Every structure is written in structure tokens, then in C-alpha cells.
């Protein structure tokens, strides 16, 4: 069986400065891997290269063993992405937005799919509301619906619960857990919420200044660094001086 997401020796330079330097990791089927690191550590750049939005300076990204640079459009059908920094058109209703993206991803039985997503993500009462008028929790659920409308085998999540209240955050986490189990999806989760990472991720990559400075299961990292939780591990690792060669 092919590994859904493989990153090999990936680097990205901007004007001679390294944003990401020689990172490698894999996300297997039915697995959630977390990427942790301070702002500007290279998480979004890494996700951008996986999505084919950025051309790597070196290295490659393989989706189902096919290099993204060689089959970007075909592979994008198998991936999706959610980020609080990216929104759906505000003037369109939730239903219209899902219809637009359903068509862009060539989703079969789109009406049934939208009904299914509405039920699963509690969108029934807001389907005909204008997206721009929704609360941030509602917008987040709509973006999540868009991100799984094509049943992606690789789902990239950039801070999926940022600025959400605890109830909505918990709902999203539970949904992602169930989605991963049901669909066997491979999920890469970039987050600053250590509780979320401990709960969802089977393994964690710790990044700082564009490199992976440590990786392992959350409980292993906590034990290895002699800390009580992932937050303390995060603080310890990011406050240590890792300089790029």
C-alpha cells in the first residue's frame, strides 16, 4: 500500500534565506501527525509546498507515491486544506459556497453530499445564510465542510480551532477524530493548541527555524524531555537555541 503523504528532504529558500531546511516525514493512512512550532518556524511554508502552492527549492512531496510537482492538478483532487486565514466568499450563502466547491472538486451526487455534510457539521440551520454574516464558529464548520467535500485522502489543517470557544473546538476535534477513523484519512495538523495535539495526534514533529528539531509520540516526547505535558515540551524546545547552519 502507498504512503498517502511523504515529504523527502524538503527545503525552501527565499532570497537565500532558509524558511524550511531539509525536512522529511511521512503520514500514513489513518494517522494524524501534528506539526508544532513557534510563529514563523516554517509550518505554513511546509503546508504550502505540500499543496503545490510553493515550489520547493530542494526535495519533494509525494502524494500516494506521485510527486506533486509532476501531477499537481490530479493530486489536488485527493487533498484539501483548512486554515483560519483563508475564507470562503462572504457574499455567497453556505449552500452556494458548498455547491461551488463541490463542482470545482467534481463531487458526484452533490446535493446528497451537501445534505450529509450539513447534518454532520450542524449546518442545517445556516445553509441559506450569507457566509459573511456567520459567527467564527459557524464559519469554521462551513470551512471544514468545504475541506472534506471531496473526501480527501490527505487533509491539511492549519490551526483548525484557532479563536473558537471550547464547545465548538471540542466539536471540531471530535469530528476530526471520527472522520479520520471512518475514512482512514491521513491528517497533518499544524496547531498551537497543545491539548488538541495531545488528544488527536499519534505523532508530533517539533519545528523551529525551518528544521525538525524533534519528533515522536506526544507521551514519548513528554517523557524524553522530563516535562508534564506538551506545552512544557514546546516551551523547552522553542526556547533552546537552534541555529540554522
Amino acid at each position, binding site marked *: 500500500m502507498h504512503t498517502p503523504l511523504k515529504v523527502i528532504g524538503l527545503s525552501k529558500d527565499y532570497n537565500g534565506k532558509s524558511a524550511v531546511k531539509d525536512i522529511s516525514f511521512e503520514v500514513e493512512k489513518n494517522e494524524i501527525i501534528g506539526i508544532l512550532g513557534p510563529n514563523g518556524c516554517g509550518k*505554513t511554508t511546509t503546508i*504550502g509546498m505540500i499543496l503545490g*502552492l510553493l515550489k520547493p527549492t530542494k526535495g519533494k512531496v509525494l502524494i500516494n507515491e506521485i510527486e506533486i510537482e509532476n501531477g499537481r*492538478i490530479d493530486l*489536488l483532487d485527493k487533498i484539501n*486544506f483548512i486554515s483560519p486565514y483563508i475564507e470562503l*466568499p462572504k457574499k455567497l450563502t453556505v449552500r452556494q459556497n458548498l455547491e461551488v*466547491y463541490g463542482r470545482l*472538486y467534481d463531487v458526484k451526487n452533490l446535493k446528497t453530499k451537501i445534505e450529509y455534510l450539513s447534518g454532520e457539521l450542524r449546518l442545517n440551520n445556516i445553509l441559506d445564510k450569507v457566509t459573511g454574516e456567520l459567527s467564527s464558529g459557524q464559519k469554521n464548520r462551513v470551512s471544514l465542510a468545504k475541506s472534506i467535500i471531496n473526501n480527501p485522502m490527505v487533509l491539511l489543517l492549519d490551526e483548525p480551532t484557532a479563536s473558537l470557544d471550547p464547545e465548538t473546538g471540542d466539536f471540531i476535534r471530535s469530528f476530526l477524530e471520527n472522520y479520520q477513523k471512518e475514512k482512514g484519512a491521513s491528517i497533518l495538523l499544524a496547531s498551537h493548541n497543545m491539548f488538541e495535539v495531545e488528544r488527536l495526534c499519534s505523532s508530533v514533529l517539533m519545528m523551529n527555524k525551518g528544521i525538525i528539531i524533534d519528533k515522536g509520540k506526544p507521551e514519548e516526547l513528554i517523557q524524553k524531555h522530563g516535562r508534564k505535558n506538551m506545552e512544557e515540551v514546546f516551551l523547552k524546545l522553542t526556547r533552546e537555541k537552534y541555529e540554522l547552519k
Partner: protein
Amino acid sequence: MYGLFLRHFYLIKSSLPRIIDLIYWPTIQIILWGFISKFFSIYSDYYNNTLGVILTCAILYDILFRSSISFNMLFLEEIWSRNFTNLFIAPLKLREIITSLIFTALVRTLIGLVPAIILTSPLFGVSILKLGFPLLLLFLSLYIFGVTLGLFVSAGLIRYGPSFENIAWSSLFLLAPLGCIYYPIDILPDFFQIVAKGLPLVYIFDETRNILLNGFINYENLKQAYILNLIYLVCGISLFYFSFMRARIKGTLINMGE
């Protein structure tokens, strides 16, 4: 009061594009109306149907304006709504994006123009439909050039992000004086004439005036316009692809809207 003045003064002082923008519009307006005035002062008896010719040319110029702005607006709306990245991570080929935008720009152009065309007849007794079949050829030529300009500007938006937005609005007005919309090319100074001959607009509007004043069509002008259109369209599409490639290297696609 002084504080509020300073708030805007600092903004203008720190931004060259804003200063250029402030200078640009009056300059273009003065140049355009300068040429128009010069034309009418030299050739006051050139047109026996001044209103009809001027209004028809104004409507035709609006076809160019609307089609180009429509194309740009489709792109800008994705940036403003922070939906740009979603669009580029969908499994859409660039040629599919371009084709979709070209078709949508046509719909937007027609929605904007049809009421204006209908209104000119009862209000001014002028109908561009009097151009007959050649109107279709003139419309298509202007539409192709409008979309081509849209492609050039969108290529800039992809490559440089929202900071290129001002260019999107001002690019068309730069062409207005050179396009010889309301006057023949010989009204321009020699150097401008050389530049203007490289634009399909000169041939399109020259032919429009020819049809309105002389009642027959000179296909040579239209042929010249279509050849230039084809060259610019190929350049526009190539630049769009090139900008996308550069944006993937520079990282503009992932930071768009920020």
C-alpha cells in the same frame, strides 16, 4: 484636526504608489481632453454627426473597459474575500481558470452594457446597432483586447499580490489617449503615433468612424486589429502562466490577501 491630517499625510508620504496614483489621474485626463480639444479646434467640421460618432465610440470604449475590469474584478474579489488560496488548491488547470474568467467577464460586460445601449436611443437618438453586422466584429475585437488587458493585470496580481490593485484600475485609462477613441491618429504627436499603431484600438475606432461617416467597412483595419489582438492575447496568456510559476517560487499564492 492636525492629527487626522498627519494620519493621511504619513500614509501618502510613505507610499510611492499613492503619490503616483494622485498624479496619474489628472495627467491622463488632461492629456486625453487636450487631444480631443485639439482635434475639434483643427477639424471643427470633420463630423456631420458629432454626437452620434462620439457617443458610439464612447459605448464601444466601454466594451473594452467593462470586459477588462470584469476580468480583473473576478480576480480581485477572490483576493478581497480571502478565497484566493482555496481557488488555487482546487484541482483546476490554469487554462480552465482563464476560460472560466473569460466567459464570466463576458456575462458581466453584457449585464453592464445592454441597459446603457438601450438608453442612448430614447435619450440621444443614437443607436450603435446602426453599425450593423460590423458591430459584432468590433465588439469581439474590443472584448478580446479587454480580456487580454485583464490577463496582463491578473498576471500582475498573481505575481505581486494586492499591491498591484491600483494598476488594475489605471491601466485602461493609460490607453485612452493613445487608443484614438474620439479622434484620428494624426492628431497625436509623432512619437505617440508610433506607439498607438501598436494598439488594436486605433484600427477599431478608426473603422468605427469610417463606417459611421462613410457607410462602408474597410476589412483591412479589422484584420490589422485582429492580428494585433492575437499577438497580445498569446503574450497575455504566456505572462499569466509565467506569473503563476514565479508566484509559486516567491510564495505570493500562499500569502495572498495578507
